């Protein structure tokens, strides 16, 4: 049975007024919304966004076509073909990532013995048709060249914890 006190409370709408007070207070609080294109939320150096292939400082591409990333990829998003270059080193002829299959788990980056394939902070990429979902070696190297400074800084920031 409800006690008399609760009965009176329900008629005085006490709990409703308490609820109204909470929302009323929040009306005057600062809103937490970010105005997206102008304001961007800060990202961690560990952020896993769009992929990139890095180069050594002398311009030589790092990837040695060991295919560890292809093997470890849980979504089978990476396809690699390799050949032997004139100087006897092994390089990729094809390095493709299907962005629709990729789950951005970062295993490729973990498995890479030469720190070639990395995931950058770029989270705002888009495509206009389905065939643009596969990005090839040239594009990956391009992204790597463009963001090399940030990529290197992010790796350096995370290095003490590895």
């Amino acid at each position, binding site marked *: *049975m*409800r006690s008399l006190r*609760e009965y009176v409370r*329900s008629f005085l709408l006490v709990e409703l007024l308490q609820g109204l007070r909470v929302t009323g207070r929040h009306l005057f609080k600062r809103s937490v919304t970010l105005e997206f294109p102008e304001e961007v939320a800060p990202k961690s150096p560990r952020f896993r966004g769009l992929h990139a292939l890095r180069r050594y400082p002398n311009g030589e591409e790092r990837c040695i076509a060991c295919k560890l990333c292809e093997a470890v990829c849980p979504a089978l998003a990476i396809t690699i073909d390799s050949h032997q270059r004139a100087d006897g080193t092994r390089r990729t002829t094809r390095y493709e990532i299907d962005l629709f299959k990729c789950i951005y788990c970062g295993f490729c980056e973990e498995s890479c013995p030469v720190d070639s394939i990395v995931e950058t902070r770029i989270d705002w990429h888009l495509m206009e048709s389905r065939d643009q979902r596969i990005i090839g070696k040239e594009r990956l190297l391009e992204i790597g060249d463009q963001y090399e400074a940030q990529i290197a800084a992010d790796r350096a920031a995370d290095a003490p914890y590895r």
Partner: protein
Amino acid sequence: MEQAVFYLFAAILLFAATMVITVRNPVQAALFLVLAFFNAAVLWVLVGAEFLGIALVVVYVGAVMVLFLFVVMMLDITAAPMREGFARYLPVGILVAVLMVLQLGVVILSDDVALVGGLIPEPAADADNIRAIGTVLYTVYVYPFEIAAVILLVAIVAAITLTLRRRQGTKHQNIEEQLSANKANRLRVLKMEAEPRQGGEGAERQ
């Protein structure tokens, strides 16, 4: 002007009333009945009985017909079975219709009832007929009024008792009980001492 308005609404009223009994779809019939009520209300307002007119809208259009539509919408009535008993009920229907026409004729044509003379009776000079109806209702006709009220109350109680049946074995929510639930009687916060970790699988895996 007033005559034109009268004939307009009277024509719509007659049209709607005809459609009520001729249209196949019961929901449409009910909606035409709503239209008929509404036009009747307008006619009443036109002769100065604004209280009756608006009360007709509030009671019949606003409440009764809504419940009516409610029921009709829930039923799946097809047109064919509705026409089944048409021939059988025709004589009774005609009898009722003739009777009603006769009654109306007697009322309209008799000399005792002063309806003949104008299309629309002159509205009372004092337009506030709500006050007038109230005064008459609570002085001259107070007993019939109260008795009618009691009869309606009895009818309400009877209708509720008819539908009120408690079946055994059904589960119901007790809303009172649900509403009176609070944190104190649903949630118990236990204070526990921290226990040392026991040796075993879980500990090793750490």
